[in-house]
């Protein structure tokens, strides 16, 4: 990493150390090198959303970002708030994503689509139908990676440098619950005991259950003492569960098919879905995204068709 000739790549934007250019090509720290050790295909979140814009518009020229309504099933965490021009907000959602309309906040703790079928139905019915608009759903739990490569953590604004913040905290607590109970332990009960005792915490229960129901993830989380590995496994289990609850038919329909059919009847507007992992970074840097898939809804089959390969063709890391 230290010998690469990158410079001025994702240097701190507002706080802390920067880089001093002395006329030579100077090896400068690049956050991407750290992130790709865990997520080899990660790209800057800014590039990811810019690619969303170009791809969707290539499908139909009328699908400019201001004619596409975004549903964002990301974690509630304030570091997933928007980047505002001329504001020094701590949110890391890229400007290129903010170009879309909305968003409808379909998520909750760790980006699971907690707002359910009613949420997606309401969102779909808000489409800019009069101007031939489309829908875009972004589903992504999140994980922090510090600039020195500590996975599952980030450094937050206004907090001590050595006080690393577990991110996503809810995923960390859910993985902790799984480990405490062991791979062969009882299924989570709601309401139950400990962090599952409060009837207000159904979202947390949903995350615990998502991991518990994924036997492979549960086994692996219990098998490793490495916190970063636990967090990567938990995050992927939650992403996978989120993807399945939206797209996979159960009893003849999926959450999304039920919403779509009730929202549109005979009309068949285009719906794009992308899932992945949002990668938060230490405050002052720009976030990254790992793209798991990019799909388009097929109203005939009620399933999502996969366009991931085409989408990634012009998706650049930084």
């Amino acid at each position: 990493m230290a010998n690469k000739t990158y410079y001025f790549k994702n240097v701190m934007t507002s706080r802390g150390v920067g880089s001093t250019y002395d006329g030579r090509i100077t090896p400068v720290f690049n956050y991407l090198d750290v992130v790709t050790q865990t997520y080899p295909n990660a790209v800057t979140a800014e590039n990811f959303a810019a690619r969303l814009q170009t791809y969707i518009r290539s499908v139909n020229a009328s699908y400019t970002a201001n004619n596409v309504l975004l549903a964002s099933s990301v974690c509630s965490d304030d570091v997933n708030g928007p980047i505002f021009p001329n504001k020094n907000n701590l949110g890391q959602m890229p400007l290129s994503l903010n170009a879309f309309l909305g968003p409808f906040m379909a998520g909750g703790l760790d980006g699971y689509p907690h707002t359910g079928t009613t949420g997606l139905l309401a969102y779909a019915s808000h489409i800019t139908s009069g101007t031939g608009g489309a829908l875009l759903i972004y589903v992504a739990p999140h994980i922090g990676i510090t600039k020195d490569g500590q996975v599952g953590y980030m450094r937050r604004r206004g907090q001590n440098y050595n006080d690393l913040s577990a991110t996503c905290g809810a995923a960390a607590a859910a993985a902790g619950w799984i480990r405490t109970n062991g791979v062969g332990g009882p299924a989570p009960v709601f309401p139950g005991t400990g962090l599952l005792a409060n009837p207000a915490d159904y979202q947390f229960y949903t995350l615990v259950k998502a991991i518990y129901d994924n036997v492979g993830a549960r086994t692996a989380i219990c098998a490793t003492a490495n916190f970063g590995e636990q967090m990567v496994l938990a995050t992927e289990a939650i992403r996978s569960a989120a993807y399945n609850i939206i797209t996979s038919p159960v009893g003849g329909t999926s959450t999304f098919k039920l919403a779509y059919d009730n929202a549109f009847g005979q009309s068949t507007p285009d719906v794009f879905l992308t899932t992945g992992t949002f990668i938060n970074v230490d405050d002052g840097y720009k976030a990254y995204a790992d793209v798991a898939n990019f799909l388009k809804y097929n109203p005939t089959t009620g399933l999502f068709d996969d366009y991931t390969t085409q989408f990634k063709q012009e998706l650049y890391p930084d």
Partner: protein
Amino acid sequence: MAISQTSYTSIVTAASAYPGAILVENFGNHCKTFIQTLCGYTADNVLRADSICSDDVNGPAYYNGNIGQMPASFNDFQGPFFAGGIGGFPFTGSIGMFAWASHVQYVTDGALLLFSAPHIGITSTGRLGHMVRRGQSTDSNTCGAVGVAVLRNTNTALSGVPPLSSDPFPFAEGGTATNAGSGNNYQQYILNKILWDDTTTRRSLTASNVTFENKMKLATESIRRATYTQAKSNLSAAFVTINPSLSDLVKDVFVVNGTFINVDDGYQAYIQINSFELYKTKTNTFVTYTTPFTALF
């Protein structure tokens, strides 16, 4: 035909609607001023959480002419942490509050602001419970999830029995064997249950002479009260039950509650404020500042 924002104000503040409503932009500015005057916190040192509805019309005001009707003045606060869900109920629970509170900027002695508000639309023709959205020409039931909860509690076949998570879609996600879905509609069930448990409101909803528009107002108010109570309960649980040492990081949490009033696309939204309080984390007490805060309006 378009009306002026002033005329819209007259419609929103009518006695039959929300007489105490003000523009949300002014509300956001008042929050900044009041918090700084009361305790000295600048907005960029205050981390906000919004327990509001997921609806895209509650998105942020962006430079690019977004459909979101949240005030631009809110963008001076940090965040936000999204503590809500459909109907604005604080669905992220006590664990959400704990996570949010632990993100405070304690090095600079920062504070927290918890904003909770369900929403209701009012069209430029004065129709309660509706708004006209961008790219659409017909009235859109707003909040749609509250509308579904009203229908669940006034449904002839179901109104005599308490809501269940297995109620047929759209009330929850049960239904027939061929239309069972994936069982993912818990939040709607909770909204249905809030109205059911509020027997006074439920009686009013099922009265024969109440219009759907007025039912929307009654239901929104019921959900606002439940949101107010639950948001404070979640906050208190984070500091008292989950981790009392949180109060070493942050001493002040401003807690404001009301009804967010969405308007037809292109106009500025309104809000009616019910309470402004200061939660003192060390003593787990809420101090009311509603009167001095609303005196700014």
